[in-house]
């Protein structure tokens, strides 16, 4: 570990904390439906979209209606993507003449991008035409992110409204977030990426005659426009197979910093928005404090392990930290930091190959996802996931002091707790269930590249990533098979929508409640005690379930590594 590395981490955290309030305020304006300076540009587009699709922007929707409209819209988008991928060979903008995407891969990819996971069973530059990248995939990057933020708004309204029947309007939430936040910001970011060396062209490839006289063909395409929303929307689906490790996706240390900031930007802003929405910004800072503590602990472990390196390679005469799967321009610190950022948020973009991390260095990304992607988390999904943990935390605190639990002015009763547990229980159930299945079926066992405990880690990581809607991988796993495409597709679907629906039910139930002012007997939900309790609940409820599986995978792998036992 170097001073320079810690400076990078400190600068990253400092910039984020400085951005939390301005971004949070901007999001708050969208949450309230207030006019922003950008309405002058995109206002006509917004009104035109409503008029053409027959949407009444004044309608206040019940949680059921909100949920149904969101589900049907997402289903329509996924269907469009499926059709576009299947028909790829017949459509224009296909300079490398790629054939149709197979049924199981198109199924997997449509769900994957729709669920804000962006798990990729394929290599982008060898599978997807430019039209598929733009039209079939980029729209999901925007709209699955906008859906996530809209859902967070809906839950905020549940806490903020009093005796209300509705939780907002899905269409206006989603459209405003897209037009006044994601699209304008992405235009700026995309041009910055182009200026830094990320290609943006409709050409498919270029032939290079290298200095040694060989021929090298470089894949090109409209990369920058996708890169911008890939990070900002915590999607993570790369244009190229190597994702943000590819120099065309992430050419410099500066683009790398901007990409990491983009991943956290909206998630961190939403904690402030939440505080504003419930009328006490300290509520938001308390949540952010708990998230940052978990984030920094993870970063320290991964950085320490990667800098220490792999003793097996040291014995062979390769000195220094673990550089297998890492790029020289990022080095150890920026690769370790990126891996923790991308798995703390549900982004899943990678600038180094997690599969080649040291055993414990790779455990942290896995564990981050198993916590439910609530450490900052995906755009929207992080904060609504975390608020479900907060409901459990006040419930536990209420049991300890013997009072009806309350949170930000709302009584938390049996219905909310049951629904929260339902949403949180989905994660371990599907991750562990599906991983177990893959470990006993020959189609599942055919997947891993590595042998020994690391092979098990690859399977566990895949299902964790899918259910948590992350999308990063221990990429040695051969996942482009009917078994894995099918199983992972179902896992991603469950991981996204089986959490959203109970969460919206909580929002509806809370919105209908009266306001209960805090009294001297209420458990305070702003101080350090509360933050510590939140961390404890996330670790115990979210993490403990997975310890046995971690012992079989990364921990066994670590013990083998320090003993020099190879597989």
């Amino acid at each position, binding site marked *: 570990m170097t001073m320079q590395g810690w400076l990078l981490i400190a600068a990253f955290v400092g910039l984020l904390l400085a951005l939390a309030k301005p971004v949070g305020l901007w999001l708050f304006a969208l949450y309230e439906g207030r006019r922003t300076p950008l309405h002058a540009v995109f206002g006509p*587009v917004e009104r035109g979209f409503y008029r053409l699709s027959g949407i009444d922007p004044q309608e206040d929707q019940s949680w059921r209606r909100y949920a149904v409209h969101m589900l049907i819209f997402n289903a*329509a988008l996924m269907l469009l993507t499926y059709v576009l991928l299947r028909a790829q060979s017949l459509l224009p903008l296909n300079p490398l003449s790629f054939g149709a995407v197979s049924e199981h891969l198109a199924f997997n990819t449509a769900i994957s991008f729709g669920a804000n996971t962006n798990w990729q069973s394929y290599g982008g*530059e060898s599978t997807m035409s430019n039209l598929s990248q733009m039209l079939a995939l980029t729209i999901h990057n925007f709209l699955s992110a906008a859906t996530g933020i809209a859902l967070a708004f809906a839950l905020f309204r549940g806490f903020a409204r009093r005796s209300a029947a509705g939780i907002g309007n899905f269409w206006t939430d989603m459209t405003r977030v*897209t037009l006044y936040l994601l699209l304008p910001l992405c235009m700026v970011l995309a041009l910055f990426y182009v200026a830094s060396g990320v290609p943006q*062209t409709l050409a498919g490839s270029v032939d290079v005659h290298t200095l040694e006289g060989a021929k090298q063909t470089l*894949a090109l395409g409209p990369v920058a426009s996708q890169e911008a929303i890939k990070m900002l929307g915590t999607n993570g689906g790369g244009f190229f197979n190597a994702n943000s490790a*590819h120099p065309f996706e992430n050419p410099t240390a500066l683009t790398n910093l901007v990409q990491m900031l983009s991943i956290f930007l909206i998630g961190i802003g939403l904690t402030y928005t939440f505080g504003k929405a419930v009328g006490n910004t300290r509520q938001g800072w308390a949540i952010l404090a708990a998230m940052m503590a978990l984030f920094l602990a993870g970063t320290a472990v991964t950085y320490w392990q990667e800098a220490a390196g792999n003793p097996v*390679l040291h014995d062979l005469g390769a000195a220094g930290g*673990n550089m297998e799967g*890492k790029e020289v321009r990022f080095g150890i610190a920026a690769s370790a930091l990126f891996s923790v950022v991308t798995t703390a948020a549900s982004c899943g973009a990678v600038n180094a190959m997690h599969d080649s991390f040291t055993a414990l260095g790779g455990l942290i990304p896995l564990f981050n996802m198993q916590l439910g992607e609530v450490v900052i988390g995906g755009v929207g999904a992080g904060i609504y996931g975390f608020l479900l943990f907060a409901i459990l935390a006040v419930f536990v605190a209420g049991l300890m002091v013997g009072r009806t639990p309350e949170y930000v002015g709302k009584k938390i009763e049996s219905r909310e707790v049951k629904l929260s547990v339902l949403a949180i229980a989905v994660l371990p159930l599907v991750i562990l269930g599906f991983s177990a299945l893959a470990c006993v079926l020959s189609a599942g066992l055919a997947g891993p590249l590595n042998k020994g405990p690391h092979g098990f880690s690859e399977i566990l990581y895949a299902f964790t990533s899918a259910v948590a809607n992350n999308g990063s991988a221990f990429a040695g796993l051969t996942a482009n098979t009917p078994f894995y495409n099918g199983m992972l597709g179902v896992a991603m679907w469950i991981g996204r929508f089986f959490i959203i629906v109970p969460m919206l039910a909580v929002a509806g139930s809370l919105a209908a409640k009266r306001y209960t002012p805090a009294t001297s007997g209420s458990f305070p939900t702003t101080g350090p005690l509360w933050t510590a309790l939140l961390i404890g609940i996330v670790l115990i409820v979210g993490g403990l379930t997975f310890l046995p599986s971690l012992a079989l995978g990364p921990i066994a792998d670590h013990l083998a590594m320090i003993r020099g036992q190879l597989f």
Partner: protein
Amino acid sequence: MNNDVLSSLRPAMVMTVLFAALLGLAYPLAITGLGQLLFPSQANGSLVEENGRVIGSTVIGQAFTSERYFQTRPSAAGKGYDGLASSGSNLGPTSQVLADRVKEQVSVMKAAAPGRAVPADLVTASGSGLDPDITPKAAFYQVDRIARLRNLDRSEVRRLVEGSVKLPILGFLGEPRVNAFELNRRLDAIGAKALAGREATATPSESAANRK
């Protein structure tokens, strides 16, 4: 519930089409137009041309396997530095395959520079398989071999590397690194200069030997 479903159908379908046009076509095409207009070189891959032929990109690594060049890192992209198949090795920390590969690579490197610890990046595969850089350590490690094989002065090659090191922005953003493509181009340039200088002074037989 039924009413909720029915009322969603028109907005869901029309919004899908409208957003597809805006986000899937208008946005990427607008960025393409602007990018090509404002930053034409970068937008097309930061390509370097010589005598009308593209000889490389300053952003993307290419394979340097000859001992007369500064060699780049092992690559898992296709058969090595395949620009259509970016990939890391994805081999884990306890992989026998990884250990065997590193062992072999270390012995190759040590043969040309005995007695010195091999920098890790020279014997490990990058994340993309297209890493354009090597660490300054890895470049200096190869100086003796290059100087010997090219009949150049060691201090001259060393100066060439020193002049090619890119330092972190603000001292902490990024890692010190050397772009192998740019370094090897400069190496070829001084090689050609030295050759031209020697041809002027040397006997014909010597200059013929040099040209081989």
